[in-house]
């Protein structure tokens, strides 16, 4: 075999070995990334180190806001009961758990997309609740401005209406601040209670009068 062919083959062999090494390394990295993502998706929620309530805690009536199956207003309230635990965070977490379960009637539909779960919750001294949701709240969201609005204000209203200590809610997704949930509604700012899109009267003015519609003008 000619000398230059031998040299060529050796160079090709060395090149191939280096390329193979890189390929194996890249495949390994991609696999480890996918594994990490899967782990985050499958088990993103820290198990509460302490229970959210004790059996001796008194019951507390709350209103959970869900979208109606059809028509206005954007959100309607369902009555539910949680335990009045000493920590406000634990009460908020109970409310979020109830929201994740969805409504217990046929005239309302769930407000959170499939697999969307609250991973962490923190309430600042100013009364802003920071809630970190799993990525599923964005990735599994079907879209639509009205639908996105219903998801966001279902969370905001359910917390701020029932827990006076929470003035505003700031939603994080996957541990980070996101501009929007599904491309429409701004999440960069904390949001406060908005009962104009519900059939519930403000607490101070609660009367037996008829429900308020969501629309400004029809």
């Amino acid at each position, binding site marked *: 075999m000619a000398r230059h062919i031998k040299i060529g083959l050796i160079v090709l062999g060395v090149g191939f070995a280096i390329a193979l090494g890189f390929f194996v390394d890249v495949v390994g990295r991609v696999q480890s990334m996918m594994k990490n993502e899967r782990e985050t998706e499958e088990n993103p929620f820290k198990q509460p180190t302490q229970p959210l309530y004790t059996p001796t805690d008194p019951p507390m009536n709350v209103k959970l806001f869900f*979208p109606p199956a059809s028509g206005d207003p954007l959100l309607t309230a369902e009555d539910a009961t949680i335990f009045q635990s000493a920590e406000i965070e634990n009460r908020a977490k109970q409310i979020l758990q109830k929201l994740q379960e969805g409504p217990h009637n046929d005239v309302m*539909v769930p407000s959170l997309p499939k697999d969307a779960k609250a991973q962490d919750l923190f309430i600042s001294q100013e009364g802003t609740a920071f809630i970190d949701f799993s990525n599923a709240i964005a990735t599994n969201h*079907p879209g*639509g401005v*009205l639908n996105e609005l219903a998801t966001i204000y279902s969370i905001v209203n359910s917390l701020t209406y029932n827990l006076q200590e929470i003035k505003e809610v700031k939603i994080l997704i996957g541990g980070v601040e996101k501009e929007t949930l599904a491309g429409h509604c701004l999440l960069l700012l904390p949001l406060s209670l908005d009962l104009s899109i519900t059939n519930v009267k403000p607490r101070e003015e609660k009367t037996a009068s008829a429900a308020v519609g969501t629309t400004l003008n*029809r």
Partner: protein
Amino acid sequence: MTLVAALGAALFIFGGSIQAADVSFPIYFPNSKLIVQADMMNRTVYLPIKEILGHLRLQYTDSVALETLTIHAGSNQLVVTKNSALMSYNGQIILLPSKILREDNRWLAPVEFLTLGISRMTGLDFRYRPGTSRIFAGNVDTPELEMNAQTLGPITRLTLRCSTPINLNLNRENPVKAILDINRTPLDPTRERLEHKDRLLHSVTFDDSDGDSKLVLDITREVTDLRITPADNNRIFFVDFLRTAPTTATPPPPTLEPPAAVATKPDAVAPERRVRVIVIDPGHGGMDTGVKTAAGTEKDLTLALARRLRTGLIMRLGATVLLTRDSDIAMDNEARSAVANNNQANLFISLHLGYSPNKMESASSIFIVNDGLGENVSQVSGTNQLFLPWYLGYRTHRQASAAAATMLQQELIKEIQGWTFSIRTAPLAVLSSATMPSLLVEIGNLNNSVNGQTLADAGFQTRLVNGIVNAVQRFSQSPQPAAN
């Protein structure tokens, strides 16, 4: 290795003495201007002292033996020494950031020589912004010039804003270079050079080295036409770079698309018309598909609808109509509202299609930003209300947005009978930064198969477009509420 070390050593030794070519440096005085040849050395601008002193009629004594230059003005005396950063003003020592040089009978001083030395002698205030190549002296009027460039589908638009009325004269020197002479001198550009680098425009450079303001446009051979459209009493100019002749530049038209319907047709403005520039935002795009069901994909339907609406608005109103995207590309919300803001739009309409978990639902909505969005944050952020957060842009025209929403609701209900269009408020990202009346229209429910087919129907889209055009026409002719 040795070679690299030698190269490094050579750079170290000779790098310090590398001298850039001379640059023309205008100094603008209240009633005159002086163009001097400045030297750039070690990133410091050196100005020739004697020429400036001659222009200011200041007496000086150049002592070769003492290597000093003594400047006299009345009883005041300023002394500078060769190769020294210290100068003496009436016996008081002043430190300059760089040494004063003397080369071939030329005294050279850094810019600070003017601001720290000559200012005291003459009482003239000198203003210099590092990175620029001009100095303003005294109370000379220096209107600001801002420039922005954007790629808008088949065209590229350069927007110029000046705080005083100006006139432009275009001169295309060769296929890749054009000069835009500005009849106002001096000007203070907010940036010297604008890099854009798209298929039509590479860069825009402000040049007043000869004392006359001009913009040097570095364009590509693909530019076949350049158009200038003034606005706001010649304070704003849109310079459009067109790739092909206007008759062939139209994107694939829907049924109504006329051959001359270029997105940026300069408007023949009727004097009473208030809405001259309209920006339409087809929701979603690219990887962001929006709602996706068997009935269709939101990003495609909104684009088709936006193109149809553009045609309707151009034909009926003769307005300048721009789309935030004219192809299947992803854009973030801030970029969408920036298209409207940067083009001085009078109306911004974002188009979306709805989704409801209920397959029987078919309601539509017209959204404006909810009142009070972000106000708590802005109050907390400080007392300086001159600079508001970007997302509070909506506040300036919220009343007008509400008025436009009402007109749109009325016209759509009239045009598409049996459909409901509710006006709602929401913290919408795409509208929050828009500094003009702005709306978001969410039409139908793509989860409803009948509704989905209707939305894709050309006849329905035409009726929808008619309703929106009627509303825009009414809004344009109505007395608009003052900015909030």
